[in-house]
């Protein structure tokens, strides 16, 4: 555990950001984890650097990802993990894989979706939504009315499509913010431990 802490908690790309947290929930979380000798998510340093921006961002994320919506929180987390895998953001992919696995209580299901949604046990309806998410990530300029219409035909309403777009777009934000700031993955054990409260209570801490 001590060895892995050292290995995983290497410096991010901007020491001036990492070493300059402002008083906030995230600073408290960082201090508590350090005092306990536990690994923690380095994204907390980005959130602690600008607490006001963090409040808006996390509030937005809570509504998009966790509050009641026409798409279940589990499927929204699969969208987050899948989008992150398309963008090759290891930290976000592992974090939201762990959150999704906690919600579904099914590691194999989540792993199969990340490998390839088409061969996963998801329903055809869910696969269609992930195909759409892939297009939002890679080719949003080519999305036309026919794309949203085919989702409606298969049973998704406009509110559900909106949530899929927004969850995917939000992770296109997080993936770049996290990767370009040098946020490192933690150990698999720490991902599981830190994902549990997010799966159960959402993104707003305290």
């Amino acid at each position, binding site marked *: 555990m001590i060895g892995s802490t050292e290995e995983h908690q290497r410096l991010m790309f901007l020491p001036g950001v990492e070493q300059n947290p402002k008083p906030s929930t995230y600073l408290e979380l960082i201090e508590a984890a350090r005092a306990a000798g536990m690994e923690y998510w380095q994204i907390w340093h980005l959130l602690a650097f600008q607490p006001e921006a963090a409040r*808006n961002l996390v509030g*937005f994320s809570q509504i998009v990802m966790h509050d009641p919506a026409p798409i279940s929180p589990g499927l929204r987390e699969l969208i987050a993990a899948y989008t992150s895998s398309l963008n090759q*953001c290891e930290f976000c992919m592992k974090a939201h894989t762990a959150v999704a696995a906690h919600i579904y209580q099914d590691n194999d299901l989540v792993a199969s979706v990340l490998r390839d949604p088409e061969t996963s046990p998801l329903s055809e309806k869910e696969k269609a939504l992930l195909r759409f998410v892939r297009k939002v*990530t890679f080719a949003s300029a080519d999305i036309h009315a026919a794309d949203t219409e085919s989702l409606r035909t298969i049973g998704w309403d406009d509110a559900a499509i909106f949530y899929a777009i927004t969850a995917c777009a*939000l992770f296109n*934000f997080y993936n770049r*913010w996290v*990767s*370009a700031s040098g946020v490192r993955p933690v150990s698999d054990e720490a991902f599981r431990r830190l994902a549990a409260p997010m799966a159960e209570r959402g993104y707003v801490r305290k």
Partner: protein
Amino acid sequence: MQTPEYSLLHQYKKVEIEEETNLPVIEEADATGAVADAYAYFREHFGRQNIPGILKCFATHPPLLQQMMEIASTMLFCEGHLTRRMKEAIATYISSLNQCPYCVDSHAFFLHVHGGSDALVDALATADAELAPMDEKERILLQFVHKVNCDSYRVSPNDVSSLRDAGWNEPQIAEAVHITALFACFNRVANAFGLPSQQLLYLRNEKIGLEEK
């Protein structure tokens, strides 16, 4: 927050955009309750009468609308560690890389209002960084945000060192990353909804703009 570009829009007739979007948005005439309140808040705080299309997308889910306005006002519509002009240059360039006609038009117009030359606006609005009249320091930042947008998983400490060597400080670099990532998000929402350009940039021909700072 300062939004002089929106005050300028008062003087001009709105261009009617009639294209259908891929998903329904809440038009101003149809706004009631929480959405009407949020639109009124926008008009008061941002000083623009016409509600931008991107807010009409989020208005389908009112709690997100307020959060969205807060994110925009604290991150973008303000001088930060980067100047407003530099933020708009980044916003225009990223939106153009992501082929988002709605965001390119809005932010190219804002860049113009905040003193961007025609040559700069045209180069960034067509994602042609080579043609952009910028100094070496600015050019390095533009190359960096290109990488953050298109290949963020490849960003390394060396990229950040190059920015530092060029004279950018850490809060500026952090802000450039944040703005770039926000546009990676907003461009996708606007494109997935199929928002058409608002045709604001044509106002450039009317010679409206602010004094150079």
